[in-house]
């Protein structure tokens, strides 16, 4: 089977972790890593792994656009805007891991199929990827009036970008809880915990439904099923304790352990972003193959 050629823009923590995941993929070919610092650890790792590297940024890629059909953007919101302007006219697809939110929000188990034809899709936030599948699953059973998530991450796993603009996390996640999760009103809270050794990422979802839960067992099954689905592409994603259901309130306690590809295992928040982005890339690859064979 012909693999889809992918490029990663950004050779930092996220880009390098994603590279390791793409190299294992049966559907994607890790073609090129694009960075701006030839001495960065990420570009060295790429070179060592035999991946083509470009160290003069997006301009360098524009000289060899044949190297990739799909590009993962693991840079910054500002740089992403420029990348879209340059890559869209060339017919490239972009999976955006920055907080730019230019393309529509996507969550693999929830709404990806609807946006497969878009040229740019956005991966929301780590908290969004971890919780929106659960909110959506609850919404499929009964209408959710209000959904609130609390993401607690290890201080060490919050990079300078997140720290400098923490409002971006709460506001983007809250919006996606409504637009993708389907809750009438969404709210997101993020907490940084400096404990040593660093704690695994945890997410608590609290939903207030329009009415009392009618069939608690059915609700539980729906939640367990979606956790299993997400777990299929984020292996460290799991329920911490059983969901708590009381009246019209449903509480779900989640934990995300990273795979430890490039980032330490406690950084489940970063792992879920790269794992979900990989999944989006793979589904795009499957769809393109179908198109080629004319199904």
């Amino acid at each position, binding site marked *: 089977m012909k693999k889809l050629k992918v490029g990663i823009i950004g050779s930092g923590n996220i880009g390098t972790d994603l590279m390791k995941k793409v190299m294992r993929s049966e559907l994607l070919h890790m073609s090129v890593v694009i960075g701006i610092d030839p001495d960065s650890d990420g570009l060295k790792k790429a070179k060592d792994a035999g991946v083509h590297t470009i160290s003069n940024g997006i301009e360098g890629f524009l000289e060899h656009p044949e190297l990739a059909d799909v590009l993962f953007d693991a840079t910054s919101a500002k740089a992403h805007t420029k990348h879209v302007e340059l890559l869209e006219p060339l017919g490239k697809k972009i999976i955006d891991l920055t907080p730019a939110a230019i393309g529509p929000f996507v969550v693999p188990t929830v709404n990806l199929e609807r946006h497969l034809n878009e040229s740019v899709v956005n991966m929301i936030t780590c908290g969004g990827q971890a919780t929106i599948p659960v909110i959506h699953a609850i919404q499929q059973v009964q209408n959710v009036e209000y959904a609130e998530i609390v993401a607690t991450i290890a*201080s060490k796993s919050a990079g300078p970008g997140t720290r400098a603009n*923490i409002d971006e*996390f709460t506001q983007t996640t809250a919006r996606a809880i409504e637009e993708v999760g389907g809750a009438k009103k969404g709210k997101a*809270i*993020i907490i940084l*915990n*400096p404990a040593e050794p660093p704690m695994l990422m945890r997410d608590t979802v609290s939903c207030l439904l329009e009415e009392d839960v009618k069939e608690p067992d059915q609700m539980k099954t729906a939640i367990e099923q979606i956790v299993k689905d997400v777990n299929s592409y984020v292996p460290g994603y799991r329920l911490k*304790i059983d969901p708590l259901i009381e009246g019209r*309130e449903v*509480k779900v306690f989640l934990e995300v352990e990273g795979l430890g590809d490039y980032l330490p295992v406690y950084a489940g928040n970063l792992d879920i972003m790269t794992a979900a982005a990989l999944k989006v890339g793979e589904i795009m690859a499957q769809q393109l193959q179908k198109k080629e064979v004319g199904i």
Partner: protein
Amino acid sequence: MGKILLTEVALRDGSHVVGHQFTKEQVRYVVEQASKAGVPYIEVTHGDGLGGSSLQYGLSKEYDIDLVKAAVEVAGDSIISVLLLPGIGTIEDLKEAYQAGARMVRVATHVTEADVSKQHIETAKSMGMETIGFLMMSHSAPPEVVLEQAKLMESYGADAVYVTDSAGAMLLGDVQARISLLKEHLSVDIGFHAHNNLSLAVANSLAAIEAGANRIDGSVCCLGAGAGNTQTEVLVGVLDRMGIDTNIDLYRMLDLADYVRANILPAPQDITSGSFIMGYAGVYSSFLRHAVIASEKFGVDSRDILIELGKRNVVGGQEDTIIETAQQMAEKKVSV
């Protein structure tokens, strides 16, 4: 010794005590009386700051901003302050509070995470608000770390930095060490916020003043999370006896305390075994109510829950961990 600037926090920290059910009438009454007594700053916000109304911390009866508006109407010469925890509240919330008339904000982070406050402190300053950095759980980091983080807040433009003993866990020496180090190395005002879990709130506040702090938090009738804060009317009286000027009318504060005790306080604000344990184990004071509820729900001793939370190094805001911890402890009990 110069003047001490007091911030009355009963309408913010006390929000925990009433399960975030303050009414506009209560806010108006307390603000009006505190203002008449001469309190320079009065804080009015959900216990967990702007945007704190949530399933995680408790839903407010009244929208935060409406309470701020009500307070501003009767504030007289007092300045209305709001609390903002980045990660919970946002700059949008802050702008709304400003429009409602709040002119001071305290931007609070865990003691090791000051860098998340940069955008909020800078925005508040650019709007012309008096802006305070608030380092929560200051007991949990050594003095040098508190200093390094306080310096960050100062560099973002904060007018003052507070050492905040959110767990009510500090002893006199802990306060002295942190405040004096900050006093030595910062050029902005230094503040101190106490909780009375170890019955040391007034004593610690005095230690802070002696070490160089000039901004102190008090809550009338001790209305605050855990065993409450430094009791305003008591502190005002003690400072008066020491000849330290606060410009606050003692009798008016005592009258207000009597009113709060009779009309707002749901139960006597004394040091229960739960609130004592929080100071003893170094756990965020607003966990108390949640631990008591979880203890009833899962049949686990609330003291055991709080001690376990201390072991797990939970930080302020992690109320969801309380339910989970209690549930896990209950399961363990059954399986033994």
